[in-house]
């Protein structure tokens, strides 16, 4: 500790070490992964049914309450999982700290914007 400093020993030690959030990323990635198993299967099955349809079929399909709920869930779980996954890729392959932080923030911001875009579009379609 620096004897010249007016800061207390505690204030100099605070903030060093683990941020205590190390397992949150890991757990959120797993929980969203499990949620995406049924959602992905439902989504593929829906696409097979909608493949031959037109815009009216799409609106009818999305307006069904179950489909609305599942589509909103899919959009949220998908982009959450995607942000966490891409963040790990960046952390592994980008080796300069400023670029790593910038890329990570850009990924999370981009995914958040995509979620909002998706949810607004769903709301506009079903109303």
């Amino acid at each position, binding site marked *: 500790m620096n004897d010249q400093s007016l800061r207390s020993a505690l204030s100099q030690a605070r903030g060093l070490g683990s941020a205590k959030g190390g397992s949150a990323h890991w757990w959120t990635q797993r929980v969203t992964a499990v949620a995406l198993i049924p959602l*992905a299967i439902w989504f*593929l099955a829906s696409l097979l049914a909608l493949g031959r349809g*037109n815009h009216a079929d799409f609106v009818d399909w999305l307006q069904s309450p179950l489909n609305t709920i599942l589509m909103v869930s899919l959009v949220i779980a998908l982009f959450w999982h*995607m942000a966490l*996954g891409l963040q790990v890729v960046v952390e592994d392959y980008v*080796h300069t700290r400023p670029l790593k932080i910038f890329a990570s923030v850009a990924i999370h911001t981009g995914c958040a914007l*995509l979620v909002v*875009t998706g949810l607004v579009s769903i709301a506009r379609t079903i109303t």
Partner: protein
Amino acid sequence: MKDDNAPLSPALQIYRPQLTSVLSFMHRLTGIALSLGSLLLITWLVAGSMGSSAYDMLLSFLRSWTGLLLLFGWTFALFYHLCNGIRHLCWDAGYGFELKTIYASGWMVVAASLSLSMATWLIGIYAMAGGA
């Protein structure tokens, strides 16, 4: 500015590929491919909210050969990431770490993702042809 001591990924130039490493690499690659595919999902939802002309335009692109090829690629990426993701979840739960089991589950993932992609497209083609 290289200022952290994070562990490095294996040096690929001197690394002999094995089924395990190739499948691991493919999990990342399909994850990135699916991230690009998610942009199509949002485009689809936006087009749907804009009305039938935008929706028809997107569908006519997706029904072109380029569109179908992209969709087939994403179908495989989805099934691969799904199957291998379940394999990862088993490992997270503490199961399947014996070398023999790791190889067996790896080949299962390859077989399952290929056959599920084929089956999905056969059903899709059958439905498109007016069978269902």
